[in-house]
């Protein structure tokens, strides 16, 4: 009798064993994910840094020169890998589309949460969700057959360029920014609004002076999130921007982004060659930028706790 109890107490119970197993499984899964992330970073970095170490491209030249022709070499014998046109193109479409999308997104979010929380929300919520679900190639195709001719007729040029890219990205990031803004506005505690109304403020005054101000960090997060999506979008932009590795001199001249040059060039270069390494450097730049966007989002989110 005594021994039996003793044995039971000393042996691991079923619950302990199953907890142990559970811990092993979740640990293995986490380890796999961490390994994947680390190896992606390692892979992109080792390929991307090869441009600077084995192909002897000057880092400053890479960031500031404007001639992108990594397959051939300049007078010093290093590949002509000047990525400035792509960097400018990527930032231009990202910032412009965010600037245009922000007022629309916030206005929609205000309408959905403050002005017509029942009817408006019920209609607009599925609409934004639907917009998120449309594949980017469809946006690109619409951009190519509607936006590009529109830009050509209205603003001149060939229609391909930063402006067309901005319009397409505007529609693509609008739902993301909208739904995140809605979350930000909803997180504003109810008593903020009640206090404001009780003081005699009108609805507009409440929205403008209380709700929007107190949810500003959340709205900023939404915009940065939209920007990071715009920055990383490849296919739709590639279809409408014209893909010319030139510094854009206006909004309707063909330009290119980091992503569009990457997707176009990968299939036409040979692994390990200077032209291929230069593309990996662009990929590394993209990876670093998305890291920056994440850091910014984290920083803002910390400030925005209620």
């Amino acid at each position, binding site marked *: 009798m005594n021994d039996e109890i003793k044995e039971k107490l000393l042996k691991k119970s079923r619950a302990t064993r199953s907890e142990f197993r559970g811990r092993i499984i979740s640990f293995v899964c986490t380890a796999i994910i961490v390994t994947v992330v680390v190896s992606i970073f390692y892979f992109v970095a080792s390929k991307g840094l090869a441009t600077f170490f084995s192909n002897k491209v000057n880092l400053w030249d890479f960031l500031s020169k404007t001639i992108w022709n990594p397959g051939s070499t300049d007078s010093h014998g290093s590949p002509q890998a000047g990525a400035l046109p792509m960097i400018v193109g990527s930032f231009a479409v990202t910032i412009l589309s965010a600037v245009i999308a922000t007022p629309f997104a916030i206005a929609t979010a205000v309408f959905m949460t403050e002005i017509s929380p029942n009817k408006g929300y019920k209609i607009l919520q599925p609409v934004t969700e639907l917009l998120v679900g449309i594949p980017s190639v469809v946006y690109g195709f619409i951009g190519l057959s509607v936006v590009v001719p529109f830009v050509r007729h209205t603003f001149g040029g060939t229609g*391909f360029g930063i402006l067309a890219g901005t319009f397409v990205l505007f529609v693509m990031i609008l739902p993301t920014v909208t739904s995140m803004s809605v979350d930000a506005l909803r997180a504003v505690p109810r008593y903020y609004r009640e206090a404001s109304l009780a003081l005699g403020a009108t609805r507009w005054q409440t929205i403008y002076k209380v709700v929007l101000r107190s949810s500003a960090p959340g709205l900023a997060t939404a915009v940065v999130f939209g920007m990071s999506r715009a920055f990383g979008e490849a296919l739709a932009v590639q279809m409408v921007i014209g893909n010319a590795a030139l510094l854009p001199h206006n909004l309707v001249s063909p330009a290119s982004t980091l992503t569009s040059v990457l997707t176009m*060039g990968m*299939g*036409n270069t040979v*692994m390990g060659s200077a032209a291929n390494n230069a593309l990996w450097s662009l990929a590394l730049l993209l990876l670093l930028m998305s890291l920056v966007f994440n850091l910014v989002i984290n920083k803002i989110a910390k400030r925005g706790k209620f």
Partner: protein
Amino acid sequence: MKKRIFILLGLVFLGLPLTACQANSTDGQSITAVGSSALQPLVEAVGEDYTEANSGNFINVQGGGTGTGLSQIQEGAVDIGNSDLYAEQKKGIDAKKLTDHKVAVVGITPVINKSLKINNLTTKQLIGIFTGEITNWQQIGGPNVPVVVINRAQGSGTRVTFERWALENRTVLQTQEQDSTGMVRQIVASTPGAISYMAFAYVDNSIKTISIDGVQPTNKNVQSDKWKIWSYEHMYTKGEPTGLTKTFINHMLSDDVQNNIVSKLGYIPINQMEVTRHLNDELQVSK
């Protein structure tokens, strides 16, 4: 008990791909061909034709571009690397390890937007357009419309061939680039004043081809080398081909395939060429 079922399911899930692979290889053989998107439709069609006749043998065909095809075959990751270019022409490829199989010829023609009333250009005019000296169609007797040059991506086989044979290897203007012929066709069709180039097989009536120095872009002119802008389509193997790879390439080169599928898809059969062009651009009359 529930957890045990989960673990079992997990094991089954993990094991599935392994068993699937085994099932495939015991059923019959399969080979993979990767590379040039210009050659892809032909290899796909011939592959399907081959599978129909020899059930159980599969030819997997993937695009990815000439660069991908050559680097994958160099690494031995695939069985056949499709290329628009000689392997020697591509930087970073050791051509000595690869065996070349020329399976077809493609002619490449300049194409323009339909609204332009231009039927012929001289080589000099063409070079002027692509190097940026001619910026308005008025300068060469066309309407007052700015020239919009659309290039293929750097390193694309079509572009390399066009620059070599139509533009005498001049440095071309940095301009719009597209990575697929389908996109080029759509953009040329919808942009006034647009000019680009593409393989004969992709030309349809939404765009217009032009003659160069009075020579029309036809298969016949390619066969006699009167039309200079053409290239071989290569299927590269690592070393000499063996097994299914060998039979498939032989099938590709058989008269039946060459005379039917190849010409039906707009390519020019190898055996109809009246000339042979060597790597060093030397011509040899073969008929």
